[in-house]
């Protein structure tokens, strides 16, 4: 099961610096662990996160095996106009999760 929680301010003034927070559920299995009987537990991680505003990329992060489960990201951007943020997480085994949130800029 996957779920995502995002936090974008509903309103901002033009030019404001706003903080965006994004949390998604994922086991982030490193690929370096073994079972009790010695078999490698296959790697299963998120490899990339992207945030777009009205189609334009505003933030991207690549992930590697040392990231904790359920990765949490927070970053800042400039509120220029009203519109929609789209979030996308992509990972191993065809993992894909999306979410979106709108902001009103006055």
């Amino acid at each position: 099961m996957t779920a995502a929680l995002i936090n974008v301010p509903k309103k901002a003034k033009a030019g404001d610096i706003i903080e965006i927070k994004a949390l998604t559920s994922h086991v982030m299995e490193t690929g370096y662990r073994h079972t009790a009987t010695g078999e490698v537990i296959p790697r299963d991680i998120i490899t990339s996160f992207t945030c777009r505003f009205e189609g334009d990329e505003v933030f991207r992060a690549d992930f590697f095996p040392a990231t904790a489960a359920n990765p949490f990201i927070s970053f800042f951007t400039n509120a220029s106009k009203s519109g929609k943020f789209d979030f996308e997480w992509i990972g191993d085994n065809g993992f894909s999760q999306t979410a979106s949130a709108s902001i009103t800029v006055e």
Partner: protein
Amino acid sequence: MKATATIVLTSLLIVAGIVPRPLIATEIPASERRSGYTFMGAETRAMQDDDTTNPGMLGVLDGEALWNRKAGSAGKSCAGCHQDAKVTMKGVAARYPAYDKELSRPVNLEQRINLCRTRHQQAEPLAYEKHELLALTTYVAEQSRGMPITPDPTPELQPFVAKGRDLFMHRQGQLNIACTNCHDDNWDKHLAGAAITQAMPTGYPIYRLDWQSLGSLERRLRNCITGQRAQNYDYGAVELVELELYLMARARGMPIETPAVRP
């Protein structure tokens, strides 16, 4: 060999300031009771307080989806019988474990949910500590967030609460130490860098950063029993439920925090 190991472990506890003393069972007065939350650093408290940074909320979202999903040969979802959890499940976690007449024993919230699966949905019980059961339990318990713990007063339950108290007070394991020695007598100290805390069961299931996942109160209790180097109980064992009952009685009136974050 065994004696040497015991001496080494005992000296470790003494270094930590936990000197085995005669059992005085100083129960914590109501005015001094504190949730594990108050022992955490500012960052971890902030993580719990914000529903968009608290990873336990992901479990709540998954639990809500499962609540509405049909399961078992009865073809019913939880919502099919209990409708809106926000209404029907409000306050339930604050009075669990509760007495089940049919089984003549107390059941915790996980067990109640599994009884609904077997009795009412004709579905297989969900496995302990697997995400589905944790998510459903977290979703149900979150409906009681902020409500005071009000233990079930059923008379049949009281002998089990008393047994839970005995277990809590009883020295056991290679360390010959009781829950009370840490959680009543030394809650203001640290053990290997971790705050000992008062063992208040206010936030379960919790998201424990060390586990990188949600976990039940029974998982936490089993961790502490391993720490005592005592024979552990299986998930669902009546002894664990008795301990849960006593912990809830001991935390009477404290608000439910589910899903809490713990280090």
